[in-house]
């Protein structure tokens, strides 16, 4: 499928990076800029990837799609949909602006993540403009590839700090034959307990969220397994639009004016006591928090159970990502220095020192 706007803008992107390198100008890499709220503010010249767009290759029987970084996710997912396939990480499209490059750079995964893997789990290969001004290729279009270091997966969630992602190959999967959503009235504590129990059983869950009032489940699989689980779990049928609302942060929970925090915790963690409202996602492994509480209190509470907290409200917190332990931060800096010696790619977006 060739779209009207498909274009290879490699030359222009390389030129801008090389100009940045020659003039020591920091670059603020952006696609649809739909995740500008996330991370620290970057001062620099905008490098817009959106002119570099289009699907480069897609063969459904290979279960691999390769596309340029500026390709809108909406377009990519439409092509997959046509072939009965999907991105299992269920990324947010944020009003249709989100691009493939942004999805990989931010590494944000949707409700299916605990069962089908994160963005990084789907990455098979990537092309990257480096801090040496080279356009290089790592990984590839095959499912298994252990030649060299796994740089393409490292790019997932690196927020553009290690280079400009120009092209990505992803593993895709067929859509399930059957999909059904349920709503079960119960409190959060019981929901978490049930989820821990069901997690040890072969139930075809593909999403589980508690919105403060009820547990919402999505079942995906063959006709037989979905029907059997439906019978066993009970509850009432739920409109599947709930999951898009959750993924896109459009549920009424997200309208609360207080700062939004993402708490990533071990899935079997019980109810977390923190000021504000919470919404449970990822079967317990991701908790959304709307709270005025101090960052320190939130981070302490979450770290105590083995997790970490990210502030999703722009400008609320100088270090939106959980600070790193000293040796880990040192190796982050060393990696940044090696791959981006002049520090021109999104400097400070994740951490002031990186």
């Amino acid at each position, binding site marked *: 499928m060739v779209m009207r706007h498909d274009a290879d803008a490699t030359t222009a992107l390389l030129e801008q990076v090389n100009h940045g390198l020659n003039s020591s100008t920091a670059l603020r890499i952006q696609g649809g800029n739909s995740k500008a709220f996330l991370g620290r503010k970057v001062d620099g010249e905008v490098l817009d990837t959106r002119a570099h767009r289009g699907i480069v290759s897609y063969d459904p*029987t290979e279960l*691999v799609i390769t596309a340029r970084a500026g390709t809108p996710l909406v377009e990519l997912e439409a092509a997959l949909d046509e072939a009965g396939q999907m991105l299992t990480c269920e990324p947010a499209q944020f009003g249709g602006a989100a691009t493939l490059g942004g999805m990989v750079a931010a590494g944000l995964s949707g409700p299916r993540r605990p069962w089908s893997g994160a963005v990084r789990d789907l990455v098979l290969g990537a092309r990257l403009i480096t801090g040496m001004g080279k356009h*290089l290729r790592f990984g590839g279009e*095959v499912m298994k590839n252990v030649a060299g*270091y796994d740089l393409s997966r490292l790019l997932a969630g690196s927020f553009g700090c290690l280079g400009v992602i120009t092209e990505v190959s992803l593993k895709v999967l067929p859509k399930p034959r059957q999909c059904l959503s349920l709503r079960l009235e119960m409190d959060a504590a019981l929901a978490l307990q049930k989820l821990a129990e069901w997690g*040890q059983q072969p139930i075809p869950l593909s999403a589980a969220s508690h919105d403060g009032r009820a547990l919402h489940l999505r079942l995906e699989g063959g006709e037989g397994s979905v029907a059997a689980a439906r019978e066993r779990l009970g509850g009432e049928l739920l409109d599947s639009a709930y999951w898009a609302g959750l993924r896109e942060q459009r549920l009424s929970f997200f309208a609360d004016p207080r700062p939004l925090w993402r708490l990533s915790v071990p899935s079997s963690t019980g109810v977390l006591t923190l000021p504000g409202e919470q919404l449970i996602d990822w079967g317990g492994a991701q908790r959304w928090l709307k709270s005025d509480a101090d960052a320190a209190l939130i981070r302490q509470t979450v770290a105590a159970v083995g997790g970490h907290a990210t502030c999703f409200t722009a400008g609320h917190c100088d270090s939106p990502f959980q600070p790193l332990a000293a040796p880990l931060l040192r190796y*982050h800096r060393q*990696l940044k220095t090696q791959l981006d010696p002049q520090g021109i790619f999104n400097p400070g977006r994740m951490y002031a020192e990186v």
Partner: protein
Amino acid sequence: MSILYDERVDGPLPNVDKPALLAALREQLPDMEVLHTVEDLKPYECDGLSAYTTTPMLVVLPERIEQVEQLLKLCYQRNVPVVARGAGTGLSGGALPLAQGILLVMARFKHILEVNPEGRFARVQPGVRNLAISQAVAPYDLYYAPDPSSQIACSIGGNVAENAGGVHCLKYGLTVHNLLKVEILTVEGERMTLGSDALDSPGFDLLALFTGSEGMLGIITEVTVKLLPKPQVAKVLLASFDSVEKAGRAVGEIIAAGIIPGGLEMMDNLAIRAAEDFIHAGYPVEAEAILLCELDGVEADVHDECVRVEAVLTQAGATEVRLARDEAERIRFWAGRKNAFPAVGRLSPDYYCMDGTIPRRELPGVLKGISDLSEEFGLRVANVFHAGDGNMHPLILFDANQPGELERAETLGGKILELCVKVGGSITGEHGVGREKINQMCSQFNSDELTLFHAVKAAFDPRGLLNPGKNIPTLHRCAEFGSMHVHHGKLPFPELERF
């Protein structure tokens, strides 16, 4: 061009004074076992790639992580190279020792530290065997998914270092997809945690970077793996084909039908005959190719999918499709495949196992290329293939006692890997680069890409003390290798020489 460490092309190694090092170890780590005599060192001279041997300067066998920590500090201080090794089952020479370095054996760290069924994870020491994890969590109806064929013996630390695969990767992923957290020691002996007990962790995804890094970036001291509920049922279909092309197309058709099998394996006629002769699995010895398709999950779905897959296979031209009647037959069908390597080994004094990956659609062309190369080099090649994920294991049959045959087998192997790269694949799907494929890395990556790999290494180990010479070739080696390529331009398939 030998794959053994060659300082002229692989870079100079520090000069290590063995008696002084031994004395320092005895003084600072008096309760750690150190091997230093020729006869004690001999058993450690190779890993699973036994054609290549190097006697290490010293072998250390720590039993406590504190000893490893202190050892690394000592080695860093004295500038001593360290090669880490688990169970030593690796097939690419990733744990091949250095004559001027210490071999750090992690095999004694055998404790399963925690099994958490509610959290579906197990925390284990690096020397725990892959299969031992699944056995330990079986009472909870859970298991650890990656199952390399060496799973009885291979250790989880090595699995992480190599990003080990297995026969169920298409559906359940590689090692990297089944990890939550690793504890590592840096080259300086600092402790660091990568990943977390949650599904992600702040900062760069160093867990992904370290997985498959072949002991070049740090030493793994603890691994937390994800556990999955055991599938309720697993069924296996065995389909016979009168051509490998048809079998290859059938694989694409199964996936086009929206089905992701738990396992999908292909064997060619030579492999079928070898396996049948050895295991009596009930394979059709007249078939040009067979497909083994395992469907697992909830009973109702599996039954349904068996019907669908059978129809697809028949449509794709299978001459026969058999569903394993019972568990015993299912196990027998798998036994033939899982023993394909030793079975092929019975056909020939020696065999050399390759590990290339290709886009599946390229299979017929690549098999044809392999068959042409096999004829050209006068060596038989049997093919077993993780068909679902495009991972080929051509087995080259040779006799090391015949002068020149090993070299011929290696050259043939190198050609096969270059063919994989040419069609958009990779020189290694799951065995790793190690020392074995160090030259072929020059075919898959250009000098700028290799330079970036070296930059990554420099971020974690600037002095190059961890597993020197593995995984990433020096540009010097590639230049030498490249000039050899031109020199041997008389070899067939000149089109393979264009990189």
